[in-house]
């Protein structure tokens, strides 16, 4: 198979963002995934979020592991550098890339097999280090690319297409991320763009490790009755804790909502997340409460979606390491090399 370019015909009626770009400018190659695959909807939400944020596409670096989900970075942001790494190891590559140039936006895309099985170690450590990234797991409960084996996020009792029931306990990436210190934790559903797009925008604007676990049904292998990662199951069991508006820095504040149902969170860059609480008891600034809430609802078979936790004062890995403001990849020999005179002194001390 060779690649397919997407015809780029700009419709005159397409809206432009602040940079004068239309949504088409944020697209990539034509997807080769199955028609109806949840992953394609997530790509569309990423495109929408980047367009709405008026990000310069080339200032994004998109990295992924291996899997159907990890193929998707080829299908959005065609003007961004992308890196399809090895299975389960996107987090380390992204960490290194982020160390090299702190000025780009890092978008990591992974699957549930990629992150919760082979890449569990890297997932855990990238999050606990506070790498400044948006980490999206396109979670379908199966290995799509290798044709439908259970993944580690499949719920116990979930039945495969071949009729086999999963007996292993599931790994909940949201619960893990909360425990590991992620400073922005959300869950979305590929079929709910209205909720997902602002979640992605908030994550991109966030400084620190932002995880979005997106339930993304696999129509080929995991979208049948008996699967807890099917369109039908998620629609029926979705418990959205909040809806989000993302308000970019310095934009007008739109009409206010009734007090008591809305809270606002301001992030480092001045952007604001306005949460319309659907559940009055839900407080996204309390990590422990968020963990309890997610677990309690999970026990009832409910899929909690929305912005589950955010710490707007979080620090990222660069802050922890105390690195200079200029990207490390921009430093030249004058800034990096101590020079001959210093070496003479070092030699003298070694005699």
């Amino acid at each position: 198979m060779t690649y397919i370019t997407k015809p780029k015909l700009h419709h005159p009626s397409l809206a432009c963002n602040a940079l004068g770009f239309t949504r088409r400018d944020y697209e990539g190659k034509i997807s080769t995934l199955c028609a109806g695959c949840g992953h394609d909807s997530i790509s569309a939400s990423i495109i929408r979020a980047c367009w709405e944020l008026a990000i310069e596409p080339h200032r994004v670096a998109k990295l992924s592991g291996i899997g159907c989900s990890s193929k998707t970075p080829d299908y959005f942001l065609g003007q961004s550098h992308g890196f399809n790494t090895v299975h389960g190891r996107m987090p380390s590559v992204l960490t290194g890339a982020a160390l090299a140039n702190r000025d780009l936006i890092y978008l990591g895309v992974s699957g549930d097999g990629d992150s919760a099985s082979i890449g569990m170690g890297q997932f855990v450590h990238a999050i606990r280090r506070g790498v400044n990234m948006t980490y999206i797991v396109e979670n379908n409960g199966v290995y799509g690319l290798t044709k439908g084996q259970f993944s580690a996020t499949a719920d116990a009792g979930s039945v495969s297409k071949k009729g086999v029931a999963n007996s292993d306990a599931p790994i909940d990436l949201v619960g893990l991320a909360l425990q590991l210190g992620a400073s922005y934790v959300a869950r979305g559903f590929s079929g709910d763009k209205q909720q997902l797009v602002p979640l992605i925008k908030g994550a991109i604007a966030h400084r620190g490790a932002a995880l979005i676990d997106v339930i993304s049904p696999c129509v080929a292998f995991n979208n049948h009755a008996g699967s807890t990662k099917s369109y039908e199951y998620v629609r029926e069991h979705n418990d959205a804790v909040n809806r989000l508006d993302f308000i970019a820095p310095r934009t007008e504040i739109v009409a206010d909502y009734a007090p008591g149902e809305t809270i606002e969170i301001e992030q480092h860059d001045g952007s604001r997340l306005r949460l319309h609480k659907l559940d009055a008891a839900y407080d996204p600034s309390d990590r422990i409460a968020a963990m309890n809430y997610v677990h309690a609802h999970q026990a009832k078979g409910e899929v909690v979606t929305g912005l589950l936790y955010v710490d707007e004062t979080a620090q990222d890995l660069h802050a922890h390491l105390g690195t200079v403001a200029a990207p490390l990849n921009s430093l030249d020999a004058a800034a990096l090399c101590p020079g001959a005179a210093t070496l003479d002194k070092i030699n003298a001390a070694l005699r």
Partner: protein
Amino acid sequence: MKSITATNDFVVKFANVNGSGSASANEMFAKSILRMGVPVSPRNIFPSNIQGLPTWYEVRVNERGWLGRRGGVDLMVAMNPQTWDADIAEIEPGGYLFYDSTRPLPKSKFRDEVRTLGMPITDICNATYDDPRQRQLFKNIIYVGALSVLLGIEADVIETLIGEQYRSKPKLYEPNVKALHIGRDYAQRNFSAEPIGLAVRRADAVGDRIFVDGNDAAALGCVYGGATVCAWYPITPSSSLAEAFQKYCAKYRIDPDTGAHRYAIVQAEDEIASIGMVTGAGWNGARAFTTTSGPGVSLMTEFIGLAYFAEIPVTIIDVQRGGPSTGMPTRTQQADLISCAYASHGDTKHVLLFPQDPLECFEFAVQALDLADRLQTPVFVMTDLDIGMNQRLCAPFAWDDARTYDRGKVMTAAELEAGKDFGRYKDVDGDGIPWRTYPGTHADKGAYFTRGTSRDPYARYSERGPDYLYNMERLLKKFETAKTLVPQPLPHKAAQPTKLGVIHFGSTAPAMEEAIDMLECDGVHLDTLRVRAFPFADAVAEFIAAHERVFVVEQNRDAQLRSMLVNEFGIDPARLVPVLHYDGTPITARFIAGAIARHARGAHATPQPAQAANA
């Protein structure tokens, strides 16, 4: 039995207990001899343990400057009752034993042909110090004092060293000098009547050389070479390299105005993550390296294949130790050659550099960073425990301030804007090396998708046979180009024409030079070639062709360098005689000379490996 007499040419071995504070006293002993102008080469022999197990420090004193391990012990400083019997057995006939005589030992514990010098060190310490910690610590400096009298090491040289060591803690100076003199006074009172035959005599054989270990040197090379990202996972014998990088960065890589760091060091969760981070940083235009040992390389192999195929600069410093598996983690070997040269699945080949000493560790670390950028591929610096963790006398580090970093073929925003054609995997210059762009360079030109899957010259996914072949053959061409860029082999001609040659590499060098000298005295003449990199330069094939028989000396069981020579040049294996030393101790001149002499005289038709004797 006549006692050994030797001036500026002997071996002293200290048998200690790990964690007893002997290391700094022993190092001071070695350095005091250096300061008297006499070359020494010390080696740590230590177990995989933090406290309590035996550890040894072997110091070869040699005015001629032979820095390889000699083998045998002329003076044993036996401070560890646990290893007493083996330590005593190791002393050369006519040698000397210095020991703590506080507890009387039966005569059966000694050897008649070894002269014993007992000193009640524990008693002396108990009488002098109240604090149990001091009693233990000062023991070491007390025996250094006694040895200095026995061997004729000047007191003020050691006092100066104590002053340097405690410059920042002047309170410790006086008590250490006092302990030194307690040892000296005792030795003068008790041993002067009958001096021993070993002596240090002032000489002028050290010159401006420096005394440093290879890990420190390689770390400094990474600082000078402009590495900004280091990701690593602790493993002996490489950990001290990453730690030294941290130490030097904290000193030389701080922004003077803000105090911010011009470096990022991450202790990763494992070696897969460390190579992943280095790959990500290299992809994104920062100079990055990792350091590890054999087991770490094994874990890294999937990524090494990705970096090879996706063409990403990566620098890996492998401080080799005894394998396979955990093997002999605190012993030295050169046994990762094949696992590094052909690391990963599919057809892969990687650039390896073989430093012989700390100076080359420094230089090759710098060069590896340049080569990785120039060639856009993984580059290994293959050092080992013997060079990495032992201080070694070597020529001083040098740096030319006019030197800049070779960042390789990186297309700029201006070039893209000017319409220069960008094909990420296209060979436009005929050297197999394509151009790359850093992420974020230009708004609508130069972006590409990096992947481990096959692609066409414009980085577009392709499984077409011709696209795949173009790429794989270009990678081979690039490897050919590498041949001319890597450090070239260094030949040395025998005093008279000979049909015998020797190929060696890395830490074998000092023992090799000495072995050649020994063989020459015996009338066996050999030309030598020190290989410094893989891919092998054509000069290596020419050297083999020019000799009837070529010995290949290495520190592994399977003759790995020899296999690579046979494989890469298609050479008749019968021409290459393996000389193999792999018991975990550093190879010695005695071993090499013995093995070669046997073969040279026997003129075997087919090569028999010269096995590691317990030399």
